[in-house]
């Protein structure tokens, strides 16, 4: 029997067409399914485009290659940031929002026509901004700081995209209301849906900040407004620019819980604690935007320290909780699955051959060790000065957004293909290696850019040899080595990313049709031959016997403390006392 067979249902007086997923038993609204597919496909297309631009950036930063001339470098850098930081991720997040609401809550999607309007606005906006950048007169980079001025279509495209994303968020909230009204679930919404709600709330603040600053900037580019204050622009823009990356954090943490639940049957160690950790994101995560303004004169130390070193740490506490509870939940589930020997049998015998699980776990580790620790260092006013506006900053956010979010979304794709697109993943042997290749490449990009940044390399410089500069400057030779290794890592990441595109697109076009008989097999190796219901239910793991997780957490904290205090040592060298 094909799982595409559908039936009509009437919920709340409105007819909708559903199919029953034989793997999960969920009623899937076909309108929601089509929207998930459209948003996911658009996301992958923009990942491809943005990824190619990213490789060109890395090959230009590699001094021995230095591929592009200056004007093309800044054009490509602008397009890279736009396509991967905003378009790939927000399109995929829309798919996650519709999945976490209509699918996981077993209900129809609110206002599918508005959801399509959202998709079209986002698509038109994304294409318009790309065209503006590729025309060559909008190489203002992702941050687009005034007084640099892009063409009006650059800002207009971003505004249209943001309005579309806002409508998508409202559709998500509307679906929550429908599910509650129509009692399609009991008690609290599932944890994965709660994580998606967190992402949605942060997205609404992000989009509002974007509207506040981009609409006047658009009018300024048209000549209707004479002046935009540069500091005011930076403050509000980062309310959008950094918060948009916090949407990713909430979304990919929700994806971690989802993949762990589906593949090994992991239930949260404590629903209350995990939800409280998400609440900390809702309340405090956006405040971390302030770390981009830590060296701005004119803003008080109180504002800077409160927004970063006080409030931001409460959000970090949320991440630390997730960083413990996700592996803890996996350990508890694996021990329940029979892997009880020693501290780490559960980890050794985890389904590492399943790209969904492997990608999720690598995302978790890399986000915590590379992105999390470096984020705290950047968010501390005193030690931020060591690497503010250096290449360390892109190194940090490649760890959070690429190793964290992108890898998690890639991992989820290996489950979405059979469950939503109803296609088996092609080239399973290569798919098994794809997350590892991409993770190694991205780890290199992140580490070597952070290394170069620690040596003082500026974050946006086309030529670190200063070959055409009136005043020369010599970076340490180690900085050149770092950028060379960054280039090699980018090639490796591009191979991993290209493999993901080939497998994803190939599976859509040539993948074997998934049926009720092979749907679970199509999800890849799992400890038990059934899909766990943990993803759609409220419930705790019921144990805290997690010796392996405690050891892993101790290793993490040791690395955290050492690296944090090493940076204070660097500051003491920079500003000798006495």
């Amino acid at each position, binding site marked *: 029997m094909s799982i595409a067979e559908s039936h009509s249902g009437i919920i709340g007086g409105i007819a909708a067409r559903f199919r029953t997923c034989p793997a999960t038993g969920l009623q899937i609204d076909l309108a929601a399914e089509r929207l998930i597919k459209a948003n996911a496909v658009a996301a992958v297309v923009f990942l491809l485009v943005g990824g190619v631009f990213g490789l060109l950036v890395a090959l230009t930063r590699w001094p021995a290659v230095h591929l592009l001339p200056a004007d093309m470098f800044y054009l490509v850098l602008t397009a890279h940031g736009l396509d991967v930081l905003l378009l790939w991720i927000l399109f995929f997040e829309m798919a996650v929002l519709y999945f976490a609401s209509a699918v996981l809550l077993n209900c129809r999607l609110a206002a599918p026509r508005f959801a399509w309007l959202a998709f079209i606005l986002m698509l038109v906006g994304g294409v318009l901004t790309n065209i503006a950048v590729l025309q060559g007169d909008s190489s203002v980079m992702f941050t687009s700081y005034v007084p640099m001025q892009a063409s009006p279509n650059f800002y207009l495209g971003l505004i249209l995209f943001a309005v579309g994303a806002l409508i998508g968020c409202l559709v998500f*909230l509307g679906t*929550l209301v429908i599910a509650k009204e129509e009692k399609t679930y009991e008690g*609290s*919404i599932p944890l994965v849906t*709660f994580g998606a*709600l*967190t992402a949605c*709330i*942060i997205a*609404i*603040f992000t989009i*509002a*900040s974007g509207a506040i600053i981009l609409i006047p900037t658009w009018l300024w580019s048209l000549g209707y407004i004479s002046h935009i*204050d540069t*500091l*005011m622009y930076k*403050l*509000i823009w980062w*309310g959008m620019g950094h*918060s948009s990356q916090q949407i990713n954090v909430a979304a990919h943490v929700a994806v971690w819980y989802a993949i762990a639940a589906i593949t090994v049957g992991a239930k949260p160690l404590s629903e*209350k604690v995990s*939800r*409280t950790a998400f*609440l900390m994101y*809702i*309340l*405090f995560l*956006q*405040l971390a*935007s*302030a770390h981009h*303004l830590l060296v701005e004169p*004119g*803003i*008080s130390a109180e*504002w800077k320290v*409160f*927004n970063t070193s006080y*409030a931001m740490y409460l959000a970090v506490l949320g991440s630390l909780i997730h960083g413990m509870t996700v592996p803890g939940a996996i350990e508890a589930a694996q021990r329940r699955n029979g892997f009880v020997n020693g501290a780490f049998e559960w980890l050794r015998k985890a389904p590492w051959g399943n790209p969904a699980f492997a990608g999720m776990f690598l995302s978790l580790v890399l986000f915590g060790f590379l992105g999390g620790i470096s984020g705290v260092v950047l968010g501390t006013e005193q030690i931020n000065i060591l690497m503010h506006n250096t290449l360390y900053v892109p190194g940090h956010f490649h760890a959070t957004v690429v190793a964290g979010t992108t890898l998690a979304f890639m991992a989820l794709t290996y489950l979405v293909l059979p469950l939503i697109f109803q296609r088996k993943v092609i080239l399973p042997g290569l798919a098994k290696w794809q997350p590892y290749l991409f993770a190694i490449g991205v780890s290199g990009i992140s580490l070597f850019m952070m290394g170069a940044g620690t040596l003082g390399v500026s974050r946006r410089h086309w030529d670190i040899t200063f070959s055409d500069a009136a005043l020369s400057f010599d970076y340490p030779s180690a900085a050149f080595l770092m950028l060379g290794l960054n280039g090699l890592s980018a090639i490796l990441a591009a191979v991993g990313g290209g493999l993901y595109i080939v497998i994803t697109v190939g599976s859509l076009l040539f993948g074997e049709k998934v049926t009720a008989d092979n749907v679970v097999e199509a999800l890849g190796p799992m400890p038990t031959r059934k899909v766990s219901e943990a993803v759609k239910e409220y419930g705790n793991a019921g144990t805290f016997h997690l010796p392996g997780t405690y050891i892993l957490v101790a290793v993490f904290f040791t690395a955290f403390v050492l690296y944090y205090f090493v940076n204070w040592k660097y500051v003491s060298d920079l500003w000798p006392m006495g």
Partner: protein
Amino acid sequence: MATKTKEPEAASERIPPMQRLLDNPFLLLFLGVTMPTVLYLMWGLMEITQIPIAE
């Protein structure tokens, strides 16, 4: 005469305030937008507007 007593089921259904907060998406939305708007945006903008204009 029968006395009216509180049914045990109703008593056990009392939902703690924190749970009510976590189960209310629109209250969470309000908090999630208000906190950064006040602490990050408004406070920051107030400080920027108080910077004296260079003469």
